[in-house]
């Protein structure tokens, strides 16, 4: 999907959580948003998802202003997975993923809806849990269920707010690989807030570095993720190491 963000700003009283954020994204692109805690990553993702109303600026999806769109229309365009979730006690995994079909149905569930749910479960490798209750799952398993729910929504834009925060190493890589592959194959886009700089480096087409609510740097990972940027934004000295598998960012010490 074509995304165009212009002059986005969010104020919490006098505090500017986001200020003058503008960027564009093209179909098939995976964009990571990185930055230290409190830099405005989650706020940016929420504003794009239309979950949070920005104080200033516009979000255009496929050249249309999102604020003028019907909520259900947005729901079919954007699949958003927030950072926190601890509800749905008496729901099964299948029912939770089925919620993703909500924007596409009126009341009845069609066989097609169930197929989409099955595909989403299969993509995340969690069909074995389909009949389990949500509270029987571990944190990481829950996170995968929520991503599957967004997949079942069949949106053109995935918005993930730290989707790997509860996952172990293997699942972090697995989830990002799967979502990146799906984004590419469906011609969708993906904007993902990440903490891990190496994951951002490996799986994104473009990286946005946020610092204190403003875009510090923006561009291809190789251009943006430099020791200088990391030092300026995180206050950490780092070095880039080249290996047979690519480039790796190695943090060294806190700059004094």
């Amino acid at each position: 999907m074509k995304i165009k963000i212009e002059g986005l700003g969010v104020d919490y009283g006098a505090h500017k959580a986001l200020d003058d954020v503008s960027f564009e994204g093209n179909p098939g692109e995976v964009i990571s948003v990185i930055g230290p805690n409190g830099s405005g990553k989650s706020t940016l993702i929420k504003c794009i998802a239309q979950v949070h109303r920005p104080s200033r600026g516009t979000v255009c999806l496929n050249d249309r202003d999102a604020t003028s769109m019907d909520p259900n229309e947005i729901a079919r365009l954007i699949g958003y997975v927030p950072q926190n979730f601890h509800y749905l006690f008496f729901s099964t995994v299948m029912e939770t993923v089925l919620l993703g079909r909500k924007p596409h149905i009126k009341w009845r569930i069609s066989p097609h809806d169930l197929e989409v749910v099955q595909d989403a479960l299969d993509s995340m490798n969690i069909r074995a849990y389909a009949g389990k209750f949500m509270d029987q799952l571990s944190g990481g398993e829950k996170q995968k269920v929520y991503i599957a729910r967004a997949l079942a929504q069949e949106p053109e834009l995935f918005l993930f707010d730290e989707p790997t925060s509860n996952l172990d190493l293997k699942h972090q890589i697995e989830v990002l690989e799967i979502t990146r592959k799906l984004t590419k194959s469906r011609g969708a886009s993906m904007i993902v807030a990440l903490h891990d700089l190496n994951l951002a480096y490996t799986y994104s087409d473009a990286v946005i570095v946020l610092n204190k609510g403003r875009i510090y740097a923006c561009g291809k990972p190789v251009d943006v993720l430099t020791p200088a940027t990391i030092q300026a934004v995180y206050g950490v000295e780092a070095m880039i190491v080249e290996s047979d598998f690519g480039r790796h960012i190695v943090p060294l010490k806190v700059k004094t």
Partner: protein
Amino acid sequence: MEKELISCALAQKSGGIIIKNRLAIILAACVVLTLALCLAGCTSPTPAPSVTPTPGNNTTAQGLTFTDTNGKTVTLPKPAEKIVVLNSDCAEVLVAIGAKDRIVGVASSVKTNPSVGSLFANVTDVGNWQTPNPEQIALLQPDVIISYASSPPKNADQLTQANATIVQLDCGNLKTIVGDITAMGIITGNVQQAQEYSQYIQSVIDLVKERVAPISATPSVYWEYNKAWSTAGNSSGGDTIMYMAGAANIAGDLGNKTNQQPAVNQEFVLTKNPQIIMKYSGFSVTNTTLAGFSALRNDTMARTGIAGVDAVKNGKVYVISSTIAYGPKAFIGLLYMAKVAHPGAFQDIDPAAKLDEYAGRFVPGTNATIVFYPTPA
């Protein structure tokens, strides 16, 4: 860009209007609903009996006519053959006017009344006085259900299904007792006995009035109901007794018809410094014994705020049973009150003997329990 912003603002505004419209619709719906309820309330068949103008003679072409305690005129087709009584005072009146055999059912509270309960041991229990059992009443097929005027049954809608007329009579306050007894006479057809009975009570009231009239002194009285500091407000049963006995109720200007037992406090009683204290003793079994009465009196006298008043200093603190403070025997309470307030004028009167006479003539057994303590000199 600017254009877009404007359109955004417009969209927001219209959104607000939609919300407001919805709110208006919802509010309108609420109003309509309330009105509907209102109408339903108005058009539903009222359980109260039909109202006709009171003629001079109580037997009309339509049947019998009388006035209930609330002042409402009630018509019955014929004298009641079967009566269910929820009010123990009315049950006592029925016995006194010779209509005991018409009583087919009584509330549980009538059966447990310490003064008259034993008279109804073999009568069917119809349950709680506020929510009598409609099925039991339907089985008894009474013509009339007599309830309290001050507190009609909660399930009146269901009771009227049993084809009985609900009559609201208190037979409690001395002011209205004679009228209520007359109404009971008309309901049962025992007009003659009712007249004799009410005249007996009226004669005592007249006697007290006559003797009190020339006395100018009005000793002040603090009358306390069951709950501490709840006193006898204007037009309550206690207030009537004090007024008729030529005593001054220190709370006579407090309270009203709906709140007859206003709550006062220690300072109020101390400031008013009553010369006499009347402590009301409720229905509970322990309160029907001499020990119970004496304990209640001691507790009352020892209470902060009461301990220092003249009544306590002079030992003029009395416990009066609910059975003679309210109900058909309230005239006995009146005699005691008058004797305590004006000992000189009522030297020759013995209320206890009067109660024995009453029990012998009208309602046996009503003199069995203690009703007043300590006995006035």
